[in-house]
């Protein structure tokens, strides 16, 4: 390409960077707003109150949900999760991913619009902003105003309230990782762990930045989920959409002036139902015009539906000019929800969920692993027998102490030697490694490896005997 081509000139003509265009969303009332507010209250309630919920346990902390990192134990009500259960996390993440695919395939960006932290926290921040600075016109006026006392006071109060919410969020998060009442006291007396201050500080900062300053830019520029949710869409996916055919008619939209006040009159001259009031644009938290069709910025919060429905109600015209619909439905065909993709994701979610639940329900009370010592694999003893050594790692996952006895089974004549160790008493959550040796006088012509089992029983019979398979090596 040559230097004086029009393309290069055009590149030069455009600024490299673009400042954010401020968005001042107007508030709106309606059923989706109510639904969103309900979810918000519920989510905040769970997030902020859960660490304060007390729980009765035989041993361990009295907090219902506690992620105890130093002790490497996660307490979730009556379930105690140990590092060995890490694969449950894989199951949980798989469920989260599949559920996201399933829901997105059917109903679009439901997660973005109703459940995402970014949406919830931004909602709260906008609420505070509105309470302090007023409705959209007042905020626009304020932002164009010179820096007088009113502006400094109102903006200062807004940012202060944001910082308070951000700090509450940071502190609220930290409470999940230690005993909540103790941590709050320690936190404000300067005695909490450094990690608590760092985490709370970092979350305060990110919450303030993301929900207060960055807002829709997080969804548009940063969030990977926003991008790959778009990929999960198809023509049958429910989207928040403007009914272009109804709104524009043959002659486009038009304000309800003069002879365009009644629906009949408009229809006669081909003008659509959209009165171009701009309410749907004003309420949009990402600042787009839904009438331009499906857009990547749209988080499907459905507030424009509420806005448009309010206008249609006022006009006395049917609701649903902006509504949940699909591209297929907009073309006048029937939306198909039962498809290989959606059914497949639904089934996969159920299968993984079932596996996870059954894995949690059937976890043995005692976690026991036997590893054969391989260096050396076997050794010949003075009486002609062959000895193998084993390390038996035990972890008591119950809430009471276990008095264990280890036996060897499945190989006639094999003798177990635990040295002088006789009592293996494990307190709740205690881990230990038992060194075991097995001696066996092999008959001639024995194979080089023989299977055997370790049987671990509780002397008080509080758990089912546990049998763990291993092997005895006679030759390399």
């Amino acid at each position, binding site marked *: *390409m040559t230097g004086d*081509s*029009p*393309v*290069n000139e*055009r*590149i030069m*003509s*455009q*600024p*490299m*960077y*673009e*400042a*954010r265009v401020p968005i001042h969303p107007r508030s709106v009332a309606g059923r989706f707003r109510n639904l969103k507010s309900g979810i918000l209250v519920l989510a905040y309630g769970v997030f902020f109150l859960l660490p304060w919920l007390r729980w009765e346990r035989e041993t361990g902390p009295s907090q219902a949900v506690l992620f105890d990192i130093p002790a490497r134990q996660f307490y979730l009500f009556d379930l105690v999760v140990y590092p060995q259960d890490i694969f449950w996390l894989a199951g949980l993440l798989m469920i989260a991913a599949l559920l996201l695919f399933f829901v997105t395939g059917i109903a679009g960006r439901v997660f973005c619009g109703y459940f995402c932290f970014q949406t919830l926290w931004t909602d709260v921040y906008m609420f505070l902003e509105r309470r302090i600075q007023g409705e959209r016109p007042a905020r626009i006026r304020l932002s164009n105003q010179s820096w007088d006392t009113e502006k400094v006071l109102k903006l200062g109060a807004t940012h202060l309230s944001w910082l308070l919410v951000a700090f509450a969020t940071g502190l609220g998060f930290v409470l999940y990782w230690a005993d909540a009442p103790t941590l709050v006291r320690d936190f404000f007396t300067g005695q909490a762990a450094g990690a608590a201050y760092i985490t709370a500080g970092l979350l305060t900062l990110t919450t303030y930045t993301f929900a207060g300053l*960055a807002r829709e*830019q997080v969804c548009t*520029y940063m969030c990977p989920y926003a991008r790959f949710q*778009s990929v999960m*869409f*198809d*023509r049958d996916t429910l989207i928040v959409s403007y009914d272009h055919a109804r709104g524009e008619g043959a002659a486009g939209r038009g304000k309800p002036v003069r002879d365009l006040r009644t629906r009949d009159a408009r229809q006669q001259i081909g003008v659509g139902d959209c009165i171009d009031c701009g309410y749907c644009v004003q309420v949009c938290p990402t600042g*787009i*015009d839904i009438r*331009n*069709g*499906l*857009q*990547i*910025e749209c988080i499907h919060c459905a507030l424009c539906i509420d806005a448009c429905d309010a206008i249609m109600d006022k006009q006395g015209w049917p609701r649903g000019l902006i509504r949940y619909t699909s*591209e297929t439905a907009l073309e006048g065909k029937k939306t198909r929800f039962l498809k290989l993709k959606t059914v497949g994701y639904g089934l996969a979610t159920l299968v993984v969920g079932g596996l996870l639940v059954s894995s949690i329900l059937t976890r043995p009370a005692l976690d026991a692993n036997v590893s054969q*010592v*391989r*260096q*050396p694999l076997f*050794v*010949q*003893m*003075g*009486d*002609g027998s062959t*000895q193998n*050594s084993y*390390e038996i790692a035990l972890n008591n996952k119950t809430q009471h102490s276990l008095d264990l006895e280890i036996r060897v089974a499945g190989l006639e004549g094999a003798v177990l030697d635990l*040295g*002088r*160790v*006789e*009592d*293996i*008493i494990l307190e709740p959550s205690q881990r*230990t*490694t*038992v*060194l075991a*040796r097995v001696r066996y006088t092999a008959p001639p012509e024995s194979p080089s490896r023989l299977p055997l089992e370790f049987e671990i029983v509780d002397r008080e019979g509080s758990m089912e005997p546990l049998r763990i398979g291993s092997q005895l090596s006679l030759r390399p």
Partner: protein
Amino acid sequence: MSTNENPSKKPGQVETTGHVWDSNLQEYNNPLPRWWLWGFYATVVFALVYWVLYPAWPVGGSFTKGLNTITFMQDGEEVTTHWNTRSLFAREMQSGKQAVRQREMLEQVGAMDYETLLADVEAMSFVNAYAKGAFGTWCAACHQTGGGGVIGQYPNLRDDHWLWGGTAEQIEETLVLGRIGYMPGYRESLDGQQLEQVASYVLSLNGFAMNDVDVAAGGEIFNGYLGGCYQCHGVDAAGLASLGAPNLSNNIWGLVDVPGAANDEERVARVARFVHQGVQRHMPAFADRLSPAEIRVLSAYVHSLGGGQ
């Protein structure tokens, strides 16, 4: 998205890069958001701060050391130097939470008597974890990882055959004082045939069917004045721990590779050659290299490996 054109941007409103693929696929030339530029400036500020605080730029044969310092103990003295990862490692090993906890455990376990220690599952669990590393550092060079030893060179610590005794106290003594094991070679005093006779006798004690005449003759030599083997190994060849003389009747072979021999002839030849040459072995003393607690933990570990008595 389902459309390949962004409906919010009308054609001509936004520039494209000018490239066109597949007849209509174009790339918008949208400006970067301004906050992205601030992010870039933030990384620049971070770098500047980092350069001031930490070692960064090479200057001739040296480098800028940075203002940040680190303090740790070196040869009993407190040393403060510019921040670096080696000193950080040294400090972690001295005063890190895990290092301190490990030292506490070592002291606690090292102060137990063997009777308590060997019967305590929790203490033995620590012994296994800690001594495995210490064994790797101090012992495995000869005795091999896991203590399996090498036939002909270094004793196997996993079997129940003990040259110097297998009680925990005896193992500790071996560790503290070291051992020198010696068997004289019979180069002058026994001829080839006599060596083979002794070899046949010893092999017969371990369950090998040998020539009766040779065995009888070998027994004469072993238990008589000519060989005098019994003086160390005992009349029943059961060995003598006070001298480090091994039991020769339990079919455990530490020095002569009898299990690796193909037939009786080779076995006899190998044992005979060994008796002819003799052997001297040396285990160094560890009293001045390891702390009493470490020696205690290592002794318990070795005791637990195989056939501690």
